[in-house]
């Protein structure tokens, strides 16, 4: 049981570390270290607090298990990410084990009730604290979050209460059940610990004394400025899990990778990509939708990521300029009739370029390049719109069946949401026209055609 708990912790740590592996340049040693931290870190802290022999150092098995489990977790990170519920459940069970063992041990050393519970909770959360410190990411247990330490607290307390009435084994089972139950209920019902907040203390008395000292009290921010009154989550009938809190945990697939992240609700999709995930393909030009440099494909459609609140697109699929090649590859694969995307193909795609990217290079369709990622994503989205038969305001016949003929006027109108300060428009138009013509001649309707296209896309005769 001990070893299983260590292994589960290490796998979790490795999966977590793997999500940041790319931008933090984490190597194999790093993954192993995180595995040790999350696998045995909590127990080590517990034993150090109790000033006893650290259990993990008592045999060869613990450290080896942690490292091995971490490597397994790293290799199968994608698989683990997909089994979210199972992972949460297993994790909740191991949380219960840590709570029970930690509290038992502390109590056995003659510690009082409160210190024993404290040690039990530290045994549960210590691993993730060390992990977050190692990764220099925000320490998750101090943030409004997943009810993790509260579940551990419940388990530890239960252990002591039940042990009074019966024996340690029964108490351990009860502690594990309570911890597991609390954590799972929190998961399903989105229970959150309340945010910190300050009491709004009136400023009146002090104000009179300091009058006429050149200080404008009206500009004093209200004490409650960032700790807004927030009704309890029970008040939000029919609302979603993340209701009410200004931080939200969201999950997005970005260029094929699942990314889980806690964001402030104010974060735009653009800032999430650039500042939180290190995906810097989309550029910030105007930050108000006027320039198009931030254009990405969101669920297959081009949008200004600066105007999309990240939290509103939880569960969405984002393709940035970095994912266009893989997108083209996937579409080509789908057209060959074999839709499966194995690892080889993915790495091939990463090295290759989207046909539009090649056309941009061939036509020298950029100067400084700042607008180019947005131009490319916008053009890919635009060509899908054309393939779906969407007209533009310059289309002669609004009701013409099938894709519009993409002449220069059409391309300029449809791309008007993307500005180029260098004025590379002439070549951008040429590059798009060429890419459109070549995709037409291979009767290649984009697989990500907008959802309710008038006639669902599909192959049709070349227009030009």
């Amino acid at each position, binding site marked *: 049981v001990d070893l299983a708990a260590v292994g589960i912790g290490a796998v979790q740590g490795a999966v977590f570390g793997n999500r940041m592996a790319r931008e933090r340049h984490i190597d194999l040693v790093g993954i192993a270290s995180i595995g040790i931290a999350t696998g045995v870190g909590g127990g080590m802290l517990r034993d150090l607090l109790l000033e006893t022999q650290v259990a993990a150092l008592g045999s060869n098995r613990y450290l080896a298990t942690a490292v091995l489990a971490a490597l397994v977790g790293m290799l199968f990170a994608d698989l683990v990410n997909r089994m979210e519920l199972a992972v949460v459940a297993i994790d909740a069970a191991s949380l219960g084990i840590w709570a029970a063992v930690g509290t038992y041990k502390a109590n056995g050393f003659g510690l009082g009730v409160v210190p024993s519970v404290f040690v039990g909770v530290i045994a549960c959360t210590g691993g993730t604290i060390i992990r977050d410190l190692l990764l220099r990411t925000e320490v998750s247990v101090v943030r409004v979050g997943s009810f993790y330490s509260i579940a551990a607290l419940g388990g530890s307390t239960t252990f002591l209460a039940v042990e009074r009435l019966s024996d340690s084994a029964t108490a351990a089972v009860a502690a594990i059940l309570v911890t597991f139950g609390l954590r799972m209920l929190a998961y399903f019902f989105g229970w959150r610990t309340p945010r910190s907040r300050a009491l709004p203390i009136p400023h009146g008395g002090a104000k009179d004394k300091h009058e006429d000292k050149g200080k404008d009290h009206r500009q004093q921010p209200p004490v409650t400025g960032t700790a*807004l009154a927030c009704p309890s989550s029970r008040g939000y009938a029919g609302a979603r899990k993340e209701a009410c809190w200004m931080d939200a945990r969201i999950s997005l697939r970005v260029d094929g990778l699942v990314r889980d992240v806690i964001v402030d609700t104010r974060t735009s999709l653009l800032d999430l990509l650039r500042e939180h995930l290190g995906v810097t393909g989309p550029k910030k030009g105007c930050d108000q939708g006027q320039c198009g440099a931030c254009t990405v494909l969101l669920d297959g459609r*081009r949008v200004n990521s600066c105007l999309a*609140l990240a939290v509103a697109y939880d569960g969405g699929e984002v393709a940035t300029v970095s994912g266009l090649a893989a997108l083209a590859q996937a579409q080509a694969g789908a057209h060959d009739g074999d839709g499966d995307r194995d690892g080889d193909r993915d790495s091939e795609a990463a090295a290759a370029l989207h046909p539009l990217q090649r056309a941009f290079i061939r036509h020298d369709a950029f100067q400084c390049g700042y607008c180019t990622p947005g131009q490319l994503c916008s053009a890919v989205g635009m060509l899908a719109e054309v393939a779906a038969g969407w*007209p533009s305001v310059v289309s002669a016949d609004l009701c013409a069946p099938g894709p519009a003929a993409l002449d220069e006027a059409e391309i*300029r109108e449809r791309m008007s949401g993307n500005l180029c300060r260098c004025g590379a428009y002439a070549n951008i138009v040429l590059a798009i026209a060429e890419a459109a013509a070549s995709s037409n001649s291979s009767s290649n309707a984009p697989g990500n055609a907008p959802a309710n296209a008038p006639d669902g896309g599909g192959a049709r005769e070349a227009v030009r």
Partner: protein
Amino acid sequence: VRPFDYTRAQDAESAIRLLERNPSAVFLGGGTNLVDLMRLGVTTPELVVDVARLPYDRVEPLPGGGLRIGATVRNSDLAADPAVRARYPVLAQALLAGASGQFRNLATTGGNLLQRTRCAYFQDVALPCNKRAPGSGCPARDGYHTNLAILGASPACVATHPSDMAVALAALDAVVQVEGPGGPRAVRLRDLHRLPGDDPSRDTVLDHGELITAVDLSPLPDGARSRYRKVRDRASFAFALVSVAAVVEVAGGVLQDVRIALGGVAHKPWRAERAEEVLRGAPPSEERFRQAAEAELAAAAPLRDNAFKVPLARNVMVRTLLDLAEDPAEGPADSQAGGPAGNGEAP
């Protein structure tokens, strides 16, 4: 941006209840305007209730031949809808003339109607604005007002409503379906937006907590033709200086049905009722169209720098009506919406 709570509404009732309970809560659609306004500090909600995923994302036929447009239908989907393109071209053209492809993929029907003015003073929290901060004054009258109102303005506010879609819907006599704390109600689109009067802070007649769920279109008479013509400072991706949405039915040599709405000239989509009166039952002619336009614009009260909108609006109205009144078999003389045709005689 001030911190705010976010929740994704599961159904209209819970969304409405959330707003009812919190005077500082707002609905979020596509966010193309609201997110910008929050960033500018113009709108500072405590709670953002995301209604974009509510199940109002379809365009459905209504009994009797009309069309019901769900409030969360994205502008791009609505413009591409085969029924809209075939039967209400004025609406498809207006949508396609609005913003950019990226915007249209985000923007919703309901959100489009409820977008705020782009008046520079409204958007700058460092400056006075009666719409944003009631009673603080209106610098636009003596300041930058090239793109502001010439009709229906008040001393308190000369803002224009920026939507293209709403102008087409006004000409189509659309009806807005609203759910709210007091139950459902229907509002004619032409009555949805207010004139500024002495309370420009309110754009529409909707109360806090009322949620647009759909826009209904009644069928147009057989033989009716419609189009949208927009004039702007550049060829694409700009707000209208002046736009015209018109529906015309010529039968027996006279104008049976004529409905005209102007954009870019007022605090709301401006239904040109005086012009319609002049035209109804009359034989179509350029002279008559000019008289009608002039009758409508007699009430115009332009400011120092936007008097150009008066002849511009007149010319765009005449040109649009001429296009619609001519025999469709002969084909339109000018297939480009907007463009210099309307500018020709502007001083």
